[in-house]
């Protein structure tokens, strides 16, 4: 088991290399000139060239990439082109907010989605099934900014329970987490339903019924446990995605997360910040995936043979 984990962590190295290489070249392929952006529209071509030289942007791409990797090995993510601060500091300032939002939103969506999914599967093809699936779908297709505005109008302006924006007090997280969780609920609920439906048809469930076990016990102990595999995958994917930041939610609620920072950095062609975010994102993703794969083994003993 430990060896498996160690191996998986080693596998992260090529992924990180691949990601940094890909993003580095993407950023350089993308149109738009950092130096011109920094200097503004009054700058002359010579000034732009001079700044590019100062920033080391006139060196060959591979040399720049090698220099970046060198820094990365020493734990140095570089300094932001647009604000001149260390990228590590920049990321560390907003990553905790992102983690907090992602985890709370994940809890919200799992709490909403699992009951809906299981209920729908157990009462398959009845109105209960249909209604719970519609509820879960509202989330995925509703314009999130509309939901957000409605939540703010109701809970902040009318009732005064939660602040409108930001992350200043403990209860600021409630509204963003609800809207983000609601948005991500659909795929968890639907995956749970479909794999539960599948599991409930298995022979061993029939055997359990024959043994005279209660329906609740069968659903929870036998079916749910065995039907969890795809659900866990989806939950993992959703958390991974949310750790990368939820741009719209962060924007509407003025939540100081990584997503907004990264989009700003992409638009400002701030390569070091984008790279820093991506490295962080990749490490998070890999860990989430590792945990998901480990959970497979906990849930389904047949998969355990993988861990060698």
């Amino acid at each position: 088991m430990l060896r498996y984990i160690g191996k998986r962590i080693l596998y992260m190295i090529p992924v990180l290399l691949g990601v940094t290489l890909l993003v580095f070249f993407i950023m350089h392929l993308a149109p738009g000139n950092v130096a011109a952006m920094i200097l503004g529209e009054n700058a002359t071509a010579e000034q732009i060239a001079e700044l590019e030289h100062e920033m080391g942007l006139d060196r060959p791409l591979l040399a720049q990439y090698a220099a970046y990797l060198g820094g990365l090995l020493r734990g140095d993510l570089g300094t932001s082109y647009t604000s001149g601060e260390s990228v590590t500091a920049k990321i560390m300032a907003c990553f905790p907010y992102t983690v907090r939002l992602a985890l709370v939103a994940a809890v919200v969506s799992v709490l909403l989605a699992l009951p809906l999914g299981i209920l729908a599967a157990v009462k398959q093809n009845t109105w209960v099934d249909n209604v719970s699936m519609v509820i879960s779908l509202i989330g995925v297709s509703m314009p999130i900014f509309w939901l957000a505005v409605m939540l703010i109008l109701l809970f902040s302006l009318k009732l005064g329970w939660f602040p409108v924006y930001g992350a200043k007090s403990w209860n600021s997280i409630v509204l963003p987490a609800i809207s983000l969780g609601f948005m991500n609920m659909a795929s968890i609920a639907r995956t749970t339903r479909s794999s539960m439906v599948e599991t409930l048809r298995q022979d061993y469930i029939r055997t359990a019924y024959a043994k005279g076990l209660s329906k609740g016990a069968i659903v929870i102990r036998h079916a749910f446990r065995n039907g969890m595999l795809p659900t866990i995958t989806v939950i993992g994917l959703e958390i991974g995605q949310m750790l990368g930041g939820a741009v719209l939610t962060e924007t509407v609620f003025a939540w100081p997360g990584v997503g907004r920072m990264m989009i700003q950095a992409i638009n400002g062609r701030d390569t070091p910040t984008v790279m820093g975010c991506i490295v962080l994102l990749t490490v998070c993703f890999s860990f989430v995936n590792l945990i998901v794969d480990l959970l497979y083994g906990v849930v389904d003993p047949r998969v355990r043979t993988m861990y060698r």
Partner: protein
Amino acid sequence: MEVGKRNNKQREEELDFASIPKNSGFKETFFRLCRNKAAVAGMVFLVLLILISVFADVLFDYQTTCVDQTISQRLQWPSAEHWFGTDEFGRDLLARVVHGSRISLSIGVAAVAFGLLVGGILGAVAGFFGGMVDNVIMRACDVFLAVPMMLMAIVIVAALGASITNLVVALAISSVPTFARIVRSAVLGVRDMEYVEAARAVGVKTGRTIARYILPNCMGPIIVQTTLRIAATISNTAALSFLGLGVKPPQPEWGALLSSGREFIRDSAYLACIPGVCIMLTILALNLLGDGLRDALDPRLK
């Protein structure tokens, strides 16, 4: 297909543990599908939608209703004259939604089909073989999963120019890793089943084992994801339209309609909500149909 068959094929037929009916064919699936009323309702809605998008030009003239503006008529709430109200340029929203269905449906279906094809193959191969192959494919997926869609989109547009085709490419690339992971985990769940081992034991070729014995038995999550990805694709189009990678004005597209309604969300909520409800109903119909299809295709439910 009865005549001139190879010997091992015959053997395989006899040993078909997965009991997939060879002759089930389109007809039988369809009849089984029709027994499911919810699925029929979904199918009827989708057929109607497709008809609407095909005959959009008959219903509303594109130039006069979707392009020509009447600024004095802007932001009017739904009325007898304009069933869905008018947008910020005074154009009839119903006409734009009708014409938009054409673009949205094609973008959604094309992007997801491409993503499913590539992602499905990668995921199935990774899940079936495990080991090194699995590692290489899944790490590559991790690489692509880590690169944000926005970034990818900017570059694709820079390299290939802004067009609907490139929009589809950008959206498809972002769904490849998701499909690969879903298919892989579904394959992991069934690849050690006895019937698969049996099929391999009697010498069925690998590709055929995956296609005939494994994939059909993990269609459930795949169908569910496919229908959901179409939803996600349509809303991602809205996100991309902020970058100018979306459709170009004055073309209507549901995601773009949704995102341009954002500014008016408090006073003219219908502007964002009507396209939102259209997207929602389409997804709902796709899902009902998807569930019905899954049941109809499931060999165990025969």
